[in-house]
Structures are given as C-alpha cells and as structure tokens.
C-alpha cells in the first residue's frame, strides 16, 4: 500500500519552502507599495503553516515500497501548483481557478505560457511571484533528474548521474545524492548571481534584472513586460541569449567547468558540441531569413535571430519579436526545434539532445544491421557503446512523449480548440516553450482557451516536465497491481 504518512510529510518541506518564496514577494509589494502586502503575507503564511503542519503532524517514516516515491513526485508538482495558484486567485479576483492553476503550473514547470494578455497591469508582487516560481521550478527539475528520478529507477541508467560526480554510475548513496543537490544548488545560484550582475552592468534596473534572470536561467520565459524581451537594448538581448544558452547546458558540466575539473568535460563533449552546433546553425539560418526575407538590417536580424533561436532550443520562450508574424517555415522550424530541447540535466524541456543523438544513431544501426546481420554494432556516444538499458529508456521515453503529444492535440481539438492552436499549444506546453501558434503564440496569451482546454494544457505541462514516464506510470496497471511478489 501507499505510505500516505511519508507522502504527506514529504510534501511538507517543499510547501514550507514555497511559503517562504511567497513571502519573498513581500519585498516588491512593500517597495512598490502596490497595496498587496497584506494578501501576500496571508497567503505566504498560509502555505507555510500548511507545510509546517504536515511536518509536525507526520513523523518521518521510511519508504520501502516502490509506488510511494512516484506518487510523491507527481503530487509534489500538483500540490505546489495548487498552492502557487492562491496568490493569483487572491490578487486578481476576476480570475477563474482554471486560469490560476494554469498560470501556476506554467510557472512551476518553467513553461512560460501565460493567460494574462496584459502582464504590465498586474501588481509587482504577483509579477515577482511568477518569476520566483519559475526559478524554483527550474531548480526543481534539476533536482528531479539528477537526484530523485535516478533513485526511482527511471533514469538510473547513468543518463544524468554518471558525470555529475565523476566515475560512479548507478546506485547512488544518500550522501552522494545530498552532495549532488548541494553542488547543483551552488551552480544555479552562481549562474543566477552572475547574470544578474551582468545585466546590472549593462544598465538595467535591479528589479528588471532579477525578474529577467529568474525567468530565463530556469528556461521559463515569463516576462514582466507585455512585449517580453523586445524592448531590451541590443547588448542586453545578446546577454539574454547567453543566459538562456547557459540554462541549456548540463549543470554537471557547468560544475566541472567552474571547479576546473576539465577532464570530466570530455564525457559530455559530444553532446555539448551538438548543442553548440544546433544553436549556432539555427541562429545563423534564422538571421539570414530575417535579413533576406523580411528585410531587417544585419545587426537587427542577427540580434533577433540569435535570441529567438536560442530561446526556442532551450524551450525558454522569451520573445524578441512576434514569431507568429514571421515567415511561416521559420515559425514552424522553431516549433520543431523546441521538441529537441537542450542538453540532458539542464533546466530545458523537450526531448533533450542526448536522446535525439541516441535515436539517430539507433536508426543508423538498424540500417547497417540489414547489410550485416551478424555484426555487433552498438549505439555509441563519445566513442563508447551506450548501455542497452539507456537505449531502451530513450526509446520508451520518446515513444511515450510523442504519443502524449499527438493524443493531447486530439483532446484539445475535442475541447474545441482549432487545429493551429491545438498543435501550437501542445508543443508549447509539452516542451516547456510556452507560446503556441495563433492567438496563444507570440505576445498573445492562452486566455481564450476553454476551461477544459486550460486543464488539459496544465496536465500536458506536467507531463512534459516530468518526462511523461513518471506521470504515466501512475496510470498503468503494473503500478497498482500486485503480482504476488513484493
């Protein structure tokens, strides 16, 4: 049976953290004195108290069964999103629950899809809460893939863990998990501070800089301005592109880089070069298109092209221009690229570059198998054969990912959303890019969606963020059925 006590206790600590994060919004509320301080204080304290209550009420109990951790992870995201939606409900009274939940889930999964057509009219505290949620969500996903899912047995096959702490691959002990979490937190904090300072030096206000970096280092994409990143200066736009680029790099790689452990860089070099290659080539391509096709000047085209391409590849969703108005093939290419995503172990969504590489090589292997049926021809990464288990994991994840993708397009259409919007919204939500196509694309919002469609989108975001398997296993018979073997 499920260990509910352990689950509730587990939910307590993150809730306390969320409450504290909410209370952080008191600072802008007081500073800008927008009259929301009291509401923020109450909601923050409420969340905090709920968390504390859970921690006090339920003792620590060890989890021995295999189901509980899965339920924990999925519930964690849902509960945090539920509590995260309270500030929206309180501060913007005309908002429905579906809207608030959508926005909250979008923040927590660092998707960046918004239902607010005019964000500038929101109170400062709420804007800050959106940014903070993304920042927390971005770190949450790193924790999840580097520390939590490996212990669940989903990604234990050295997908992310191997290079995080050097040579160890599977079977991480509790101490090394704690160490991993600490290291990643340092990297995350360091990157955030670095870019905030960099933006300050480029002449940005502190308020703008913090919000911008919070939303972009987590590859989220919420903005405090209606026109997203379009009104930034050119230097700031390049800096923003760099921020997003960093959010797409494997954090273990960044850690090895900062701690000068160069040798460890080798293990991920092939993926990193592929990532770099994608970023550069797509940026150049879109700049060329912007220049030759849409008549922008070279400097403008380059600036816009680089920012937009990297925003797409890292599934961030910050916009330098309304991409829905761009040349159709370019807009469509961006949709496809966001499915690819950044490197594994980063804050980005999408399939992740490592998976795409393994899949492509698996196809090559299949082709040459027909010529040489008896040859042993494993899929290789960095020149080393990839373990069979990892290949299986990648195949299953991809299959499920696309199944969910197509299925949710269907469900959205059944909810009454037209074809363009359904395709755009599904890709935007499952990859964590955010904006879709049509009305929900560009500087638009998801406001026009029906209530059911908003819930579907929220669920798709959750699926995409937790890489489908973690959520989907809860719906499988194997999960709930006892085979008589424990």
């Amino acid at each position, binding site marked *: 049976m499920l260990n509910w006590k352990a689950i509730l206790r587990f939910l307590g600590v993150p809730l306390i953290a969320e409450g504290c994060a909410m209370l952080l919004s008191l600072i802008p509320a007081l500073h800008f004195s927008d009259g929301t301080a009291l509401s923020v204080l109450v909601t923050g304290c409420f969340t905090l108290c709920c968390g504390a209550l859970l921690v006090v009420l339920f003792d620590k109990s060890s989890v021995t069964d295999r189901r509980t951790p899965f339920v924990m992870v999925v519930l964690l995201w849902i509960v945090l999103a539920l509590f995260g939606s309270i500030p929206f409900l309180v501060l913007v009274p005309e908002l429905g629950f579906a809207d608030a939940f959508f926005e909250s889930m979008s923040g927590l999964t660092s998707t960046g899809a918004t239902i607010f057509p005019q964000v500038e009219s929101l109170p400062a505290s709420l804007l800050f809460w959106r940014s903070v949620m993304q920042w927390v969500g971005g770190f949450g996903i790193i924790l999840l893939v580097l520390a939590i899912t490996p212990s669940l047995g989903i990604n234990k096959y050295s997908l992310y863990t191997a290079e995080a702490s050097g040579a160890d691959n599977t079977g991480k002990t509790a101490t090394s998990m704690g160490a991993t979490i600490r290291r990643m937190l340092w990297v995350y904090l360091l990157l955030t501070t670095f870019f905030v300072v960099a933006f300050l030096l480029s002449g940005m206000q502190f308020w703008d800089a913090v919000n911008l970096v919070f939303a972009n280092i987590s590859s989220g994409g919420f903005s405090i301005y209606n026109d997203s990143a379009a009104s930034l200066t050119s230097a700031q736009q390049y800096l923003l592109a760099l921020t997003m680029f960093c959010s797409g790099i494997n954090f273990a790689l960044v850690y090895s880089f900062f701690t000068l452990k160069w040798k460890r860089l080798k293990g991920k070099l092939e993926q990193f070069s592929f990532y770099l290659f994608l970023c550069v080539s797509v940026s150049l391509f879109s700049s060329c298109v912007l220049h030759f096709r849409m008549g922008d000047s070279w400097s403008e085209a380059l600036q816009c092209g680089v920012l937009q391409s990297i925003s797409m590849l890292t599934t961030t969703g910050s916009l330098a221009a309304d991409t829905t108005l761009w040349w159709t093939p370019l807009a469509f290419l961006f949709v496809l690229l966001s499915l690819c995503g950044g490197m594994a172990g980063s804050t980005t969504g999408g399939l992740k570059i490592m998976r795409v590489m393994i*899949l492509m090589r698996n196809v090559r292997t299949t082709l040459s198998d027909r010529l040489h049926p008896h040859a042993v021809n494993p899929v290789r990464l960095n020149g080393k054969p990839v373990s069979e288990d990892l290949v299986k994991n990648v195949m299953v994840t991809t299959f499920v990912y696309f*199944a969910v993708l197509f299925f949710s397009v269907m469900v959205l259409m*059944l909810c009454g959303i037209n074809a363009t919007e359904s395709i755009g919204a599904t890709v935007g939500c499952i990859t964590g890019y955010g904006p879709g196509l049509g009305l929900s694309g560009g500087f638009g919002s998801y406001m026009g969606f029906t209530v059911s469609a908003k819930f579907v989108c929220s669920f798709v975001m959750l699926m995409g963020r937790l890489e489908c398997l973690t959520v989907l296993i809860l719906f499988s018979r194997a999960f709930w059925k006892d085979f008589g073997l424990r």
Partner: protein
Amino acid sequence: MLKVGHIAQMAPLRLYARILGIVFLVLAGAMLPPLLVSLVSLDGTWRAMFASFLLFVLLGYLLRNVLGSQADYDVQGRNSFWITAMVWIVVPLVASIPYLLTGVARGFTDAAFESFSGFTTTGSSVISTPEQLPAGLLLWRSITQWIGGLGFMLIVVVAFRKLKVGSRHLYDAEFSGAMQPKLHPRLAESVNRMLRVYVLMTALMTVLLLLSGNGLLNSFCLSFSTISTGGFMTSSNGLTSMSGMTLFVVAFFMLFSGMNMALLYNILTFRWRAVRGDEFKYYLLVFGISVVVATVALVAAGNGAESFCYSFFHLASTVSTCGFFINRPEHWSFLVSGITFVLMIVGACSGSTGSGLKLKRVMIGVRYVRNYFSKIMHPNAVFSVVVDGERIPLAYIKKVFAFIFLYLCFFAGGAFLLTLGGENIPDAVCFAVSNMGNIGPSPMMNNLGMTIDYAMLSDFSKWTLVVLMLAGRIEIFALLALVSPSYYRLKRELNFR
C-alpha cells in the same frame, strides 16, 4: 571512390533491368481494359492510351528480353532495398505518360503527382473535377491504385516463382521485415493466396456495388480504390452523391481492406476459428472507441443522430487509410478531426494494403512501455512483449522504435518542406500526415474545411508530397538505403573492417 566496375559489383544492373521489364509488361496488360473503355466511349483519347500501351510493351520487352536477358538472380540485403526503391521510383514516373498524352495533367509535375499518388494508394488528386475525366483514364487511375495496393514486389515474386534465393528479401524490403502477412510457410503459395484474396474481395465488392445500383465503370473504379485503400474518387465532392446502400458497402469494405490479408483469407475461406489475433482486436477496439467518442462529441455539439453514420464512415475511411469522405451539408465541427489526426498516424493493420505506422508497431510499442513500467516496479522480473502468443525479440522491438522515430522525422521534415512550399502550418501538417499515411484526401481536411484540391499547391510542395507518399508506402528504410553511405561500401572492404 566509386568506379564503374564497382557499380556492377554492387548492383547487378541486368537483374534490375529484368525486374523493371516484367513490371512494365504487367502495366501494359493493365492498360488493356482502359484502352478498351476509351475505344468504346469514343471520346478521342484512344490514341493517347494506345501510345502509352505501346510504350509499356516496348519498354517491357526491351528491358526484360534484351537488356536483362542474362540476369544473375542474386538478391541480397542491399540489392533488395535498392530494387524496391528503384522500381517504386521509376515505374510511377514512366506510368505518368497516359496523363500527359491525354492532356488531363497540366504538366509533368501534375502527371507524376497523380501517378505516384495512384501507385502508392494515396489517392491525392490534382484533377479537381474527376467527373470530366475521359472514362478510360478514370479506370486507369483506379487500376494504378489496385496494382500499387498489391505492391510491385509481389508481382516480381510471382514472376520469379522459380527463384529460390532472394525473393523473400525482396518481399521483406517492401514491407520492412516481418510485417507482411504469413499465409503459408512457402512464399510462392503465400503470395498466391494473397492474390486470390485480393481479387475475390474486389470482385465481391464490385458485384455488391452493381447490385446497389451503380454503373459498371463507377463500380469498378470505386472497388479498385477501396480494396487497395487508395482513395481516388470519381467526383469532386467525394462520395456525397452516392446512395446510402453504396456508402454502407464502401464503409464495410474499407474496414475489411484495412485488415491483415491473412485474416481476410481466413474469413473468406470460412475458417472462423482462425479469425483472431491481437492486432485484429486492437483494430476493432480502436475503431469502435473512436466512433463512440466522435459520435458523442458530435451529438454533444448539437448534431443529430446522423452523426453516427458520418463518424462510422469517416473513421472507417481513416483507419483503413482509404481516404473517402462525404461532404457535410453544413460545416462539420472540427472536433472529430483530432481523432482522425491520431488515427492517420497510427494507420492500418500490418499486412494490409493500408499504410501509416501500422497498428502492430504501435501495439508493440505500447506493450513494451507497459513492460517497462512493470520492470520498474519489479526490477528482477523478466518481461517480454508477446503478440499472438509469440515472444517478440528485443532486436525487432528496437527496429520498431527506430521506424517510428524515422516516420516522425519524415513527417516533421515533410511538413517543414511544405511550409517552404508556401503552405500554412496546419495545412502543411495535415498534408504531410495524410500523404505519408497514404490516406490522401482525408476526412480530416474535409472536416477542417480545407480545400482538397492539390492542383493549387506549388510544384515544390507536390514533389515533397510525392516523396512522403513513397516513404509511407515502402516504409522509409528502402528509400533511406538509397542515400545511406554504408550501402555504397563494397563487400570486400567491409569484410576487413
């Protein structure tokens, strides 16, 4: 680098010529009924038809008896892919001649598009008003689908019945391995039975259509289109003007033609006990559920009880990758087009004339995912994917996943090229999915209110669609083998690698 001597070693050109020749002779034979029809109907197209007939005979004779006279029958892995790809590219190109000579196509691109669409059983048409086509050509269009539904390699296998080595390779190449129906342990017998099923089904349908009051030509055209899951229609507004009885017959035969041939053989020979199988179950289940969901959604949206009939017809047309549609009096809501979208990707059963991912592959994928979950819950247990009581080896499952990935890549790439060709995004996605799945003029587009007039597309888009149709029909790998570097290395080098 490649030298001329190497080419001869890699690709036995005489064999290629011989195979092509045989296919052309078969085409010449297939040209006879349309020729007869145009002679009888006195619409002045008989000259063009006769010229095409002569061309096929001449080409066939030249290739088979002159160039390919001393062919060396060694069809190994590489060659089987190449032969399949070559036949599928060359034959439809040449077979576009009748469209050009009669002047119904506006240019080579249009003619080739129509021809490829026919042979790949897609059914997308650049002819906006088929009712104005000369009768002979109308028949020829349907016959190309009928031949394409069988597959060229089947023709080759029949022609090379004495060939001991390699025909299995060829047969596999067209169906990407183990997806073909196994009617009999012996390939020749298996192919024979398949042919019989195919002919019998066509005959049965034609008779039923005649009985329900359709004209002779119309019945033949419609049954050729249905049994091959092609989808060329004889009227510009789909099957809207057909009688209810006709639609009923068509709907059921569409469902049947989306099934595995082996299963159909068992049905037609009254071996009821053998009519089962996991894929068959899934097929009916998927179809049933989608009809129910579609009907409920439509009724909930304020439509009447006729929603069921429309859903039934349109979804049968989609699961079988046939592609017939009925125009709605008023605009049908797009609710159902989401369902057709997913069904178009999934496609029909393996070993049928339909295309798409094939239900069997999806089924294997789903079962593997299920096992994967079980494995997470019970890490020390051993699970295997079982289909029809047989364990599927891991190597095969990997191939299935590789195929699914490739299919999606082609789909995405094709849609991107279509946007380059000037289509907007939903149209591009729609066109890509329906042409790659060989559905053609899908009910989805009809429901979305899209024009299904392919004549409006740019030439670039048309050729993109041609590639997608081919990729969908010969299941990508054969096409990919043409551009894969490993297929251009010589055997000798490989042995010492």
